[in-house]
């Protein structure tokens, strides 16, 4: 190492100590190096610091902004919170059942008018030779509120990408699966359980493998991605303990619901692989 390299290395080590506030004793006989170190001390001593009032005022303002942001998020989230509440779901489901029941009953003609308000009276006589069609019940359009619809609409909140380490495998070869989750919302999302359950199904939709659910809870910040790996060891079909037959297999990702509603995930379409004959 050249003399200058040694000097600058020593100089930089000493400057780091000066900036850290450590006492520095200069033993070198190199006057150039010594005076450079003294000047570095001077630069540090001349460095300005913010006044206490500036620091305090700015901190107060920033924390107030943080609080305002929080309050705004709270206000805009009331609707979602109202409808993620268990009681609201129960009421909604009950109303849906009632509407369906009314619709079915209406269709059955229970509420059709019968002239003298007598449900047992016979239909009016029709002049012979003339037939008129008996009016049937009016079909009422029914709507049902599907309990599974996410109130977040069609916006993807969690993007799920799955990939296998190969597009096709020989029989009995372990399939390694990589799953990544990206939080595409503007809110922190908690995922439970983690890792998620990974299911492998055959072309007929039969489940041949299900991974064990994890026991962790993780938080994903907006824009953050996490990933985990699962291995389907030796392609053993968990239904019959035999190797899975050749064919196309599909990956599905899901997890066990918590109490607080459901969030829409979007899984990439390329989540299948082949087992070769």
């Amino acid at each position, binding site marked *: 190492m050249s003399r200058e390299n040694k000097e600058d290395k020593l100089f930089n080590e000493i400057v780091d100590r000066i900036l850290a506030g450590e006492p520095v004793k200069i033993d070198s006989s190199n006057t150039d190096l010594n005076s450079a170190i003294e000047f570095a001390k001077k630069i540090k001593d001349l460095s300005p610091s913010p006044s206490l009032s500036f620091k305090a005022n700015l901190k107060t303002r920033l924390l107030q902004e943080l609080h305002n942001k929080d309050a705004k998020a709270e206000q805009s989230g009331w609707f979602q919170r109202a409808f993620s509440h268990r009681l609201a779901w129960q009421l909604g489901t009950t109303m849906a059942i009632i509407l369906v029941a009314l619709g079915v009953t209406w269709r059955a003609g229970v509420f059709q008018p019968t002239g003298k308000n007598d449900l047992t009276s016979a239909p009016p006589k029709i002049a012979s030779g003339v037939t008129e069609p008996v009016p049937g019940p009016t079909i009422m359009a029914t709507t049902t509120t599907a309990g599974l619809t996410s109130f977040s609409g069609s916006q993807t909140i969690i993007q799920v990408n799955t990939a296998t380490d190969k597009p096709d495998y020989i029989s009995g070869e372990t399939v390694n699966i990589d799953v990544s989750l990206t939080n595409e919302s503007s809110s922190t999302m908690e995922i439970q359980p983690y890792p998620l359950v990974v299911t492998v199904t055959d072309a007929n939709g039969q489940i041949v493998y299900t991974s064990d659910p994890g026991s962790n809870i993780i938080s994903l*910040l907006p824009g953050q991605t996490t990933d985990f790996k699962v291995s389907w060891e030796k392609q053993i079909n968990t239904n019959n303990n035999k190797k899975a037959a050749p064919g196309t297999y599909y990956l599905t990702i899901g997890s066990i619901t918590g109490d607080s509603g459901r969030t829409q995930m979007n899984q990439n379409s390329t989540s299948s692989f082949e087992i070769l004959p």
Partner: protein
Amino acid sequence: MLFGFINRGTNKITQSTADTFADLYEQNVSKVLRYISYRVSDLDTAEDLTSVVFEKALSKFGNFNRERASFSTWILSIARNAVTDHYRAVGKEQNFQQDSIKNFIPESMSPDDGIVKEEELHRLKALITGLSSQEQEIIAMKFGGELTNREIAKTLGLSDSNVGIIIYRTVRKLRDSFGVTL
């Protein structure tokens, strides 16, 4: 589309986030102000830009990824951009004026000490403006932002050893121009 079942998580900025940001603020506000003060002429501008930097950091705090950089490095990157934007807005680099230096001297300092420090600070800042932009940047990051050579190197796309050499040579250059006899 698949409908999964995931806990919604909270929209709220929790108390822990506010505490975390407050701690990081306390640890870094002096470094940010000092870094900016090496790049601008007067205290008012330095304080304004420091406020802008922390407001931007607050708005982007949710996206801050600790695995990619330390908070100090991250916020000093924001400070660099803020200074660049400032100079773009004012159209030219400002010359240091004697009066503007006074504001950097703490009120608690005695008048005589204050005069000496004011004079020396004026000379130092004037010399720093005479450096190349890379040298200015490195001196400001080192003595203002208190970044390590490695962090400076990563920010500027240089090697660690290169940064170390530049710091050593620049300090000696400043020393020689300052007229210090030690």
